[in-house]
């Protein structure tokens, strides 16, 4: 009862905070935090669904109308949640360490970028960009292309043992990036480092802005992805993955076809990334190889690890925390530091204006990731929300 009241109060207060201070990053962080708090609070399932539904379906768009940047953040969080959930299948459930996951995201993104922009004319002749409506079809195409890429890569490499697989997938991620960077000749498929723009946006319902449209689209995809994750996890397929993760030889001896099960995990993970790639390219209007570096792969991995490997709520929270950290905390800290510099503030006799621009916190994303990864591994390797064993009993 106390929890229920506290949850409702928390949501109202944090919502009000954002309403009163629409430019305060802190207020928005509190709002985001309250969603996590509601998720873990000991309240009835219907109340949780109601509160989260209200927050995500009603409050968030309203907040977005006040400050578009927050809607942007929420959409980015959604994209990374879907990516983290995809990688969670591969790493968390099936135990295959994929260090090149962002490659599938890139494949999806380029799939739509090429046909959804005038660049398609260079590749295929005339007729491009395709009608914006084709975007919705290409969500499926992106899924299939990414899944196919996953299977193509998986077929030769999934026989390798764990840490070799990690390095090979890392190499594959680099290969995809190198290809994206260099496939402007002999045929100009990717336009090289210059990237592709403008990429077509999908039509949205007339009463919505583009950013609202993307927000709801991403939310919808995230819900589907969570559903798929849960249904796979709680089935013979999920059990086979877990068994493989525990002991490959024993799993195989019990009748689990290793390569096929691994391929399935790989393809599932890849397909989520592919779909989100399509969304990402349409949302950004512009993509180039810089969006698909090793750092991004590790970023998504950090989300899964931080949340707890194999745990769906973990992946959601991990993705939220890391994205918010990158988009808001580090950037916010940089902005704040800049304001101090411009105001000629001195700390311990040191004039901050003398601080080299190279020391902007936003440039030290890797350091923050690095510390998070190491500290998490040592202090809490199971993550913030570790996967709980399902206790289940079936009547005779």
């Amino acid at each position: 009862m106390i929890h229920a009241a506290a949850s409702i109060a928390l949501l109202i207060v944090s919502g009000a905070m954002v309403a009163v201070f629409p430019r305060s990053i802190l207020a928005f962080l509190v709002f985001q935090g309250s969603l996590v708090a509601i998720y873990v609070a000991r309240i009835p399932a219907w109340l949780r669904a109601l509160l989260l539904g209200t927050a995500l379906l009603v409050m968030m768009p309203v907040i977005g109308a006040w400050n578009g940047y927050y809607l942007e953040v929420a959409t980015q969080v959604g994209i990374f949640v879907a990516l983290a959930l995809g990688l969670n299948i591969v790493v968390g459930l099936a135990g295959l360490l994929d260090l090149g996951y962002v490659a599938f995201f890139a494949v999806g993104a380029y799939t739509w970028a090429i046909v959804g922009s005038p660049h398609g004319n260079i590749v295929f002749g005339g007729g491009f960009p395709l009608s914006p409506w084709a975007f919705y079809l290409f969500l499926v195409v992106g899924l299939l292309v990414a899944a196919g890429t996953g299977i193509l890569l998986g077929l030769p490499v999934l026989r390798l043992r764990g840490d070799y697989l990690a390095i090979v997938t890392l190499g594959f991620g680099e290969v995809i990036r190198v290809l994206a960077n260099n496939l402007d000749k002999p045929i100009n498929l990717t336009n090289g480092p210059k990237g592709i723009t403008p990429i077509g946006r999908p039509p949205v319902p007339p009463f919505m802005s583009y950013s609202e449209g993307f927000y709801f689209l991403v939310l919808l995809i995230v819900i589907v992805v969570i559903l798929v994750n849960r249904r796979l996890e709680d089935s013979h397929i999920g059990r086979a993955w877990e068994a493989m993760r525990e002991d490959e030889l024993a799993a195989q001896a019990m009748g689990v076809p290793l390569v096929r099960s691994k391929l399935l995990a790989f393809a599932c993970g890849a397909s989520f990334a592919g779909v989100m790639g399509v969304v990402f390219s349409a949302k950004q209007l512009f993509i180039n190889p810089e969006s698909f570096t090793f750092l991004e792969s590790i970023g998504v991995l950090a989300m899964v690890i931080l949340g707890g490997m194999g745990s769906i709520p973990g992946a959601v929270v991990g993705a939220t925390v890391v994205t918010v950290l990158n988009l808001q905390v580090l950037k916010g800290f940089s902005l704040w530091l800049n304001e101090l510099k411009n105001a000629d503030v001195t700390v311990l006799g040191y004039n901050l204006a003398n601080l080299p621009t190279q020391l902007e916190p936003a440039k030290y994303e890797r350091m923050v990731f690095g510390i998070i990864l190491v500290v998490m591994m040592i202090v809490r390797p199971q993550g913030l929300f570790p996967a709980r064993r399902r206790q289940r009993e079936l009547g005779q």
Partner: protein
Amino acid sequence: MTGLFEAAGVSKRFGGLTALHGVDYRLDAGIASIIGPNGAGKTTLFNIFTGVYPADEGRVTFRGQPVLGLRPDQITALGVCRTFQNIRLFANMTAIENVLVGMHARVRVGLWDALARTSRFHASEQGSWRGGLDLLERVGLRPKANEIARNLPYGDQRRLELARALGSQPALLLLDEPTAGMTQAEATSLMALLRRLVADLGLAILLIEHNMRVVMEVSDRVTVLDHGEKIAEGVPREVQTNPRVIEAYLGRRAAAPGGGRAGA
């Protein structure tokens, strides 16, 4: 007529080491044992029978169908399942989940059923859970269905591994040192369970075992391997008195009537 399980001329080398040299084997029904010192090639033979290693030479058939070249999961699907010398449970899964994984080869629903939660899927899951709990009941672990395998006592782990292997509904069960680490009393009760399984389910069982008392009591037939070669085969009494077996393996004392156990 072809037997249930037949091997002919099976050879295996590891680098320069010959682990198996032209071994023939045949099993039709009941409980058979393979004995021999460590390094004689017993576990290697199991690994070849279950597809873990490829053989260098020879052929192996199950119900007349060639087995060599198949993957372990395919062989399990045919109806041959095994346990391991050093228990290999899925340590962080519950007892019932371990058994459910054992039933994987018998699940007839696919990805789509799982995603769409079709009625076929629900029926299949229910059937699996019921069957899994029955198997746990059979080995006496029903009350521990939801315990994490890693936390079970040693003897329970051995029995859980047996239940997991039974999950694939095998016609032939290969057990690698099932009584290792058990006291004589525990071993005797496990053998009674195996006898019941043969009677109830019509299974054939092939054991690798070091406990001579168990072997001699429970086996219909005993095969002795030494240095990768079969040196004797027959009913327990014949093998026990075979001079070559006494020389290479049993020793005078163990071969004497009511002789002691060998090893663990």
